[in-house]
């Protein structure tokens, strides 16, 4: 297993935004993460690929404590996520501290999860106003900028059910960005979309990566992984099997499981 992440391309600072150590997570008797060591450096765009059920999504959900972990450690910005250490044991953090930690991490869901009773604009200003205490006018101004950025300036008054899947996902990305996160997590952000709508969402993600946003994307879009990722992680059977630059993974994968998986996609 390669754990060296120094191969990333244009990142000059080595600050670790995300670090997991021996992460273990199981649902009942089914172990979905079996000792995962995973690192993301500041400014990196990391893409996690792998077959269904390999633990990619669970890994992502553990990073902002949407899932509890069984053992191991997760550090984001150098801080332990979701737990505090007491006599070498993990004790779950208080709700306030978990919420505070999550406010710094953007999460984009496969099924968008826009607030159904709010317009696009309301969706975006909700958390800045009620979590961060941003004044209303300022939140609205910022939301309009973000909507313009994701190409939906004309949709601010639309309710989610009146938007296409691609539009909804772009609003969801804007909603996450409104919190000015240090890190963005994308959980199969395009998997629920009609094929012709995938591109518009990937473009927004690509722009973000180019701006230097630190991000982790779980995806089945191999083109995106190849073109955008600074670092690609291949997971299978609850473990990281291989990782490296996109060139290393897509051209010179060493592990037979990686090659087999990619062959299925890249024919």
């Amino acid at each position, binding site marked *: 297993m390669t754990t060296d992440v120094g191969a990333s391309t244009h990142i000059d600072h080595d600050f670790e935004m995300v670090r997991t150590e021996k992460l273990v997570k199981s649902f009942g008797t089914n172990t979905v993460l079996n000792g995962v060591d995973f690192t993301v450096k500041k400014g990196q765009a990391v893409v996690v690929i792998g077959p269904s059920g390999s633990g990619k999504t669970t890994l992502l959900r553990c990073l902002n404590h949407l899932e509890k972990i069984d053992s191991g450690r997760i550090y984001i910005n150098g801080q332990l996520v979701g737990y505090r250490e007491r006599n070498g044991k993990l004790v779950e953090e208080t709700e306030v501290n978990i919420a505070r930690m999550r406010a710094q991490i953007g999460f984009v869901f496969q099924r968008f999860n826009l607030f*159904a009773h709010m317009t696009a604009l309301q969706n975006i200003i909700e958390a800045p106003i009620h979590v961060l205490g941003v004044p209303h006018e300022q939140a609205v101004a910022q939301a309009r900028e973000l909507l313009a950025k994701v190409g939906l300036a004309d949709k601010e008054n639309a309710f989610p059910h009146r938007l296409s899947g691609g539009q909804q996902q772009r609003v969801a990305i804007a909603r996450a960005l409104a919190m000015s996160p240090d890190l963005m997590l994308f959980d199969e952000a395009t998997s629920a979309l009609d094929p012709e709508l995938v591109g518009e969402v990937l473009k927004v993600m690509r722009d973000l990566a180019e701006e230097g946003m630190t991000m982790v994307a779980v995806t089945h879009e191999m083109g995106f992984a190849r073109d955008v990722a600074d670092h690609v992680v291949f997971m299978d059977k609850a473990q990281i099997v291989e990782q490296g630059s996109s060139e290393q993974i897509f051209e010179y994968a060493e592990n037979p499981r990686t090659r087999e998986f990619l062959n299925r996609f890249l024919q």
Partner: protein
Amino acid sequence: MFRWDQVWYYLFQDPHLYFLQAAWLTLWISVAAQSIGVVLGLFLALMRMSRFAFLRGPAGVYLWFFRGSPLLVQVLLLWAGLPKVSDILLPAWACILVSFSLNEGAYMSEIIRAAIGSVDAGQTEAAQALGMRYSLAMRRIVLPQAMRVVIPPLGNEFNNMMKTTSIASVIGLMELTGRAQELGAQAFTTFELLIVATVYYLILTTIWEFVQRWIENKFNPDKMNVEVATEKGTMARMLGFGRPYMGK
């Protein structure tokens, strides 16, 4: 002999407005008991969904009692039983209001709990991922959406409530049924006056039907007024009408 003149008299000519006053009593007790019941039901529902057993337990016992015994018995327990075990003697209207509210709370809590459960779990997750605490996510994201689901059964409950107030006549409260029986007993025209009471009940429930349809329309997301939705206060967002948000 059926006395139509009595029906006519109490519907249109009664200078004392006996039935109109009785209808007013029926209406305000229904509105008050239903409102208290909704608030109570909300707290009970949240208690039942709590992760703390010391909140779940009492709420469960409450529901078990109030859904498991007849409303009439609960009314009589308050009316006849309470003075026996304490110095408290509630007036008839208070007895009715308290027992109806407590009883309604039990039923509303089940309706609200189901409505909260019907809101997609992804909504809570999205709220939490944005840094909202459970209470904030509940108040801002889940409950407003649950309200839409609550409206139709709530309409049913209120319709039922207005008719069930007839139980109040048992302890001598002069709401519609009580009034009909009292006046009817004096002139042997109970049947006639029950017809009058029925007319009033039908008027009340018919008006409510229109009100309910109007509220449901307000809640229909397809017809929601976008202008209002963009700039409105908490009540307006939850109910679809109310004072708009004016900013600072």
